């Protein structure tokens, strides 16, 4: 039957396409609940911002700071909130890592988002954080950096180039590894960037 064959092909081919796509999607586990504003999983993602980007952050002490001010140091820019669970877990790690690396040319900048002054100061005191922190009250900075959740970190070379973006909570080891890589690169050791 000619008509039969044309129906078989005319309908069958598109249907096959649709079905294979869906099967592929289900196997890939697409469509599971998407991203949330809290990043519980550690991972590296592609940069969401121009490598030369910068910001003007008013620190808790009232000073205006930017990445530019730390030219010559490796800079870690951390977006966080005092209420977010992985940030809480990460707090002491960050404080310790900073104390360990601050004499080796590494600076940290904390940017609290979706947060207010008292809990942020409490958090800093509780975790004995020594690096500079500020609040981005209305998203001017984090939207500019393509941040969609917390914690998210950007790593900046001494030349002011943003090179890596890490989401989710770090351990001392993950941070140490990245910072070692970056200092090695600065010193021209190893095969890192």
């Amino acid at each position: 039957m000619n008509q039969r064959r044309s129906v078989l092909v005319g309908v069958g081919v598109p249907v096959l396409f649709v079905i294979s796509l869906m099967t592929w999607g289900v196997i890939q586990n697409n469509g599971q609940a998407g991203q949330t504003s809290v990043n519980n999983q550690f991972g590296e993602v592609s940069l969401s911002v121009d490598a030369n980007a910068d910001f003007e952050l008013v620190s808790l002490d009232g000073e205006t700071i930017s990445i530019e001010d730390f030219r010559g140091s490796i800079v870690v820019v951390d977006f966080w909130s005092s209420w977010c669970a992985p940030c809480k877990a990460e707090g002491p790690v960050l404080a310790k890592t900073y104390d360990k690396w601050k004499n080796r040319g590494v600076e940290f900048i904390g940017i609290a988002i979706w947060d207010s002054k008292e809990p942020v100061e409490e958090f800093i005191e509780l975790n004995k954080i020594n690096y500079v922190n500020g609040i981005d009250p209305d998203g001017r900075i984090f939207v500019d950096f393509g941040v969609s959740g917390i914690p998210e970190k950007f790593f900046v070379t001494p030349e002011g180039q943003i090179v890596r973006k890490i989401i989710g909570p770090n351990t001392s080891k993950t941070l140490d590894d990245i910072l070692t890589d970056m200092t090695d690169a600065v010193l021209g050791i190893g095969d890192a960037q």
Partner: protein
Amino acid sequence: MIATHTFPYRVRVTVLVLFTIMSAIVTEACVREEDISLEQRAYQLSGELMCPVCDGQTIDGSNAQIAVDMRLKVTNLLQEGNTNAEILDYFSDRYGEEILAAPTGKGFNMLAWIFPALIVTAALGIALYTIKHMKSSVLNNEPKSSSTGNISIKHTDLSEYLDRVDKDLGIKKDSTIQAKQEKEDEEEN
């Protein structure tokens, strides 16, 4: 058959309708974004941007904090004088293409927009082809005498329709109408 003048009725109607549609679309397309207030443009753009942390909602429809902040960013960017396209680019550079509520019309994404046009064209094409095919196929077993055509034309005239209404009602004033009616019913089924 009733003689038709220079252009058949249906051609004239089609042309008229098409003309109206075209002029409507052209005028609509001529509304420039500069003519719309910044606030309305901000709402428009908020409907074109997805909220990155809320499944399937635009920042316009979401109450999540990030949506609030992104709406503010849209307003700021507008006040700095950016065009709508620049603002959409700003967000897709930072949050990826998936931040746009509709795919761009460029490159691979053009497929998203071409397909609907193809679908409609193909559907109408198949429909018209089928009608034509069904018109000419030979499975007709109704007598195709010359009178059939005349009756079917008359049948659709208004007066005939009204007679039918009367008949439906059960108001059969005229036995000839009734007779004609029955004949038509035979025809119709």
